[in-house]
């Protein structure tokens, strides 16, 4: 199947001079053209071809539209997960001082227990529940007669042992089907125990991917937690929230190290190392930073409407991206001392790590990468790859929407479909008590010309012409595109990793960082460079072909008679 085998050749039989994807005047050459893409798609049944064609772009200078956030066709080996994974796994799970109960058969709780590397530390270790996993472990009788009683019992037991301030309940597939009323159970438990109990109807079949679950979690946190605190204003200057930062491998801690030094006052992080106590007062921040746009933009937008706090799209992955983000933040506050301190920290940090980065750059320069991750990282990591001299020739997201590719300007034109309509929209209005415009409207408009204030331009504008953008990349396309591009490194997740490495190509997990990190900020850039260089340079690649392969078994000389 595919291009190469049509010709009876394996990619490795073709004579490439170095990498097949080479740069010519800023455009990526060879790789994939429309004709070759068509050949690839021709391997699909007609309906699949028609569908997948809309999810793949070869970047050119024209404005291009990509299909995203639509159903994966059954049978296609996708990397996507479900709404439960997005809700409990991604957004709620990292909140350390809430007990997260999963209502359902045991699996969903089990798989989302400790597998995502969202680190957290609490001053009082009894207020950090992240090493615990709570499942109502529904049995057949619960499916038949309903699971509400068992859930209520579990809440009773959890309150008695763990004494949390707040609890979340996340629904799994059968819960919605049998009609357990989670919000009624939650309400009754709140009255009984005097603790906050939030319920989330994030059954796995909702929406088309994790993304539905992000939205459901955003709504719940906004409705029941954020703004419930007593604070009227922040206790220090430059008060910010960090949204869409999950502290994977300690990313959030590296970002906070830099922000603290510059003088920012972090109110709440959503949600890596986040806490219920902090989230309640998130309304007092003067600015919301948005790292992962996909998973948290709903809260960002609602905070702006309800409390008058704008959000700034940041990207703390990569040195220049970190620097730009810090400068944009300083510009927002517009305080000279802050600007100066920002520049001082940037200068020092950059000078400190540059010589180290240079060493790694020598090992990485001239290589190419595929970067297919999540709903933001497929974009975020391109700058860091580029700083190491690695060109991203293919990128895409697993569960993003069109705005993550094309920018938020396309939002008004996206029509809701049957799947997105199933996810409730939460509409908020200015809060009577806490609403205040954090900066004058005129200044906000002015800033929007300079910085991504309450805006995200998406991935496409940052990619070179000739590069390829694929939404919901699947296993077949992964194999074929690797054969065509022969990238030097493939950044993706655990399900692809060993597929790619079996081909002799290093694979870097950018969901779990291969159990390393942090990769964010200045120190994170160095750690990433170190890990990527090791992946290229490990001597193990040299042993793939046994020394006896292609060698004659017997050698000898012919004597003249």
């Amino acid at each position: 199947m595919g291009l190469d085998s049509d010709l009876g050749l394996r990619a490795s039989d073709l004579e490439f001079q170095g990498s097949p994807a080479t740069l010519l005047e800023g455009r990526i050459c060879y790789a994939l053209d429309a004709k070759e893409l068509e050949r690839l798609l021709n391997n699909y049944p007609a309906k699949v071809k028609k569908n997948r064609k809309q999810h793949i772009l070869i970047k050119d200078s024209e404005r291009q539209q990509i299909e995203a956030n639509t159903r994966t066709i059954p049978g296609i080996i996708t990397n996507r997960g479900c709404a439960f994974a997005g809700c409990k796994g991604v957004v709620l799970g990292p909140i350390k001082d809430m007990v997260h109960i999963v209502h359902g058969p045991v699996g969903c709780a089990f798989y989302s227990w400790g597998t995502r590397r969202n680190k957290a530390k609490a001053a009082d270790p009894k207020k950090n529940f992240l090493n615990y996993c709570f499942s109502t472990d529904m049995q057949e009788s619960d499916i038949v007669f309903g699971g509400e009683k068992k859930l209520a019992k579990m809440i009773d037991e959890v309150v008695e042992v763990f004494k949390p301030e707040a609890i979340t309940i996340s629904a799994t597939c059968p819960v919605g089907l049998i009609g357990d009323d989670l919000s009624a159970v939650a309400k009754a438990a709140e009255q009984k125990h005097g603790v906050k109990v939030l319920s989330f109807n994030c059954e796995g079949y909702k929406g088309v991917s994790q993304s539905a679950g992000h939205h459901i979690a955003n709504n719940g946190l906004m409705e029941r937690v954020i703004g419930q605190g007593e604070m009227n204003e922040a206790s220090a200057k430059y008060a910010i929230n960090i949204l869409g930062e999950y502290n994977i491998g300690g990313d959030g801690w590296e970002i906070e190290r830099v922000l603290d030094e510059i003088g920012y006052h972090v109110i709440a992080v959503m949600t890596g190392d986040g806490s219920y106590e902090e989230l309640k007062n998130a309304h007092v921040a003067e600015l919301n930073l948005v790292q992962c746009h996909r998973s948290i933009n709903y809260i960002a937008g609602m905070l702006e409407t309800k409390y008058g706090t704008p959000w700034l799209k940041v990207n703390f992955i990569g040195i220049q991206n970190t620097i730009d983000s810090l400068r944009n933040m300083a510009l927002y506050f517009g305080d000279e001392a802050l600007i100066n301190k920002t520049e001082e920290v940037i200068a020092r940090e950059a000078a400190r790590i540059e010589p180290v980065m240079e060493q790694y750059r020598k090992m990485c320069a001239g290589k190419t990468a595929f970067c297919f991750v999540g709903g933001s990282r497929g974009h975020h990591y391109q700058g860091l790859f580029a700083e190491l001299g690695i060109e991203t020739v293919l990128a895409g997201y697993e569960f993003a929407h069109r705005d993550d590719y094309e920018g938020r300007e396309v939002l008004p034109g996206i029509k809701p479909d049957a799947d997105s309509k199933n996810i409730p929209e939460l509409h908020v209005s200015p809060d009577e008590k806490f609403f205040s415009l954090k900066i004058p409207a005129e200044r906000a408009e002015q800033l929007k010309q300079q910085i991504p204030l309450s805006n995200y331009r998406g991935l496409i504008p940052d990619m070179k012409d000739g590069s390829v953008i694929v939404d919901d990349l699947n296993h077949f396309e992964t194999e074929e595109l690797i054969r065509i591009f022969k990238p030097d490194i493939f950044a993706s997740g655990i399900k692809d990793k060993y597929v790619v490495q079996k081909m002799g190509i290093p694979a870097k997990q950018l969901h779990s960082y291969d159990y390393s990190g942090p990769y964010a900020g200045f120190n994170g850039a160095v750690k990433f460079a170190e890990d990527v260089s090791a992946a290229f340079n490990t001597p193990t690649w040299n042993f793939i072909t046994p020394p006896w392969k292609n060698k004659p078994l017997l050698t000898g000389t012919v004597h003249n008679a």
Partner: protein
Amino acid sequence: MLDCTPQEIKERSGGKINPAKTCQPVGAMYAALGIHNCLPHSHGSQGCCSYHRMHLTRHFRDPIMASTSSFTEGACVFGGGANLKTAIKNVFAIYNPDIMAVHTTCLTETIGDDIPSILSSAEIPPGKLVIHANTPSYVGSHITGFANMTKGMVNYLAESSGEPKREQVNIIPGFLNPGDMREIKRLVRKMGIKLIMFPDTSGVVDSPMTGEYKMYPNGGATVEDIRDSGNSRLTLALGTFASADPANQLERKCKVPALTLKTPIGVKATDELLLALRNKFAREIPAELEEERGQLVDIMTDTHFHFHGKKVGIFGDPDVVIGLTEFVLSLGMQPVHVLTGTPGGAFEREVSAMLQEAGVKGRVKAEGDLFELHQYLKNEPVDLLLGTTYGKYIAKAEDIPLVRIGFPVLDRSVHSYLPVVGYKGAMRIIEMISNALLDRADRDASDEDFELVM
């Protein structure tokens, strides 16, 4: 670490805290990978397939391929027939396996999708096969799912030719690593007996690095072999929980006598496996295997003072835990807490009988969780914990060495390649236990008590 866990044990009935089991479908997916050229298919939401592939990949550090019916809300309302039929069509057109093994999920069981009737109207290309197993996540555990999918193989594939049974043995190995499956095959072959092992994930999830990716690696039981299992003289089911059901089904369907043995962990259970083969096939135990056994017993005796009297907590999957319990008893250790997450009174009866025979007072629990195991340990501490990676939180909290055996092991490597079964596997377990205990003794020793020779 785990600072909220109190010592005082109270009865709980609301669910599991830190479960020691997971759901049926992941076991079904793993079993299906043990068929050559097979693509497991998860009939449910995408998340199930994704989670199972993630977990299996992390345990084996090898590609785990499977497809999904990608349910949406509409499919829940109208039934998953259309999704499954589309999936079957696309899987054969795009990924071209010889066989698809469909398992259900809690979603599709709850809405009552009737898989056989969906399959009967699906477009399955000529020469291709689709089998299925019902694996409701709210019954049993991943071990049940493994058994159910293996039973599905029997239901769909095994055939009896009606001729006299042949001199070959079927081995249903249970939910073990490929390294264990290879070792069991080696033992049986050394006995000079032809065998059919199914499922057989060796060569599938421990495939070699060659520079070329094969979506369907060389390993796995072939459909022909599973078909032919109906003509064997005997089926050995290794482990009651994962293997007895399919073996009994094969007996019913093809009149192949089924014999259920323990997972061959340790000297006694390995002896029993070889004895069964010897008796049923009238083959002498070869000198080479007797030598291995002698070496194992030599090691056990020479190092008994490393283990004897030490208290152990064991948890994990029932068949593996039963084998481990028996073996540590053979080493003179005291398994004072033995727990599985999988439901089953048979587990409690079997382990309790072993402890009673050995005169060890221990607590045995089926359908337990790691929260209560931790509480047991707080009340009666142990010197060693044997179990999966999930024990590491307890091990750290209580400062107990943990030896990782079973599924899943997510934080160490090589475990899936090397056996814990057979005499060689027993030696390996001794080495692991020994290293853990002695490393701890070295770490804790004062300078004056620090020994060169131990």
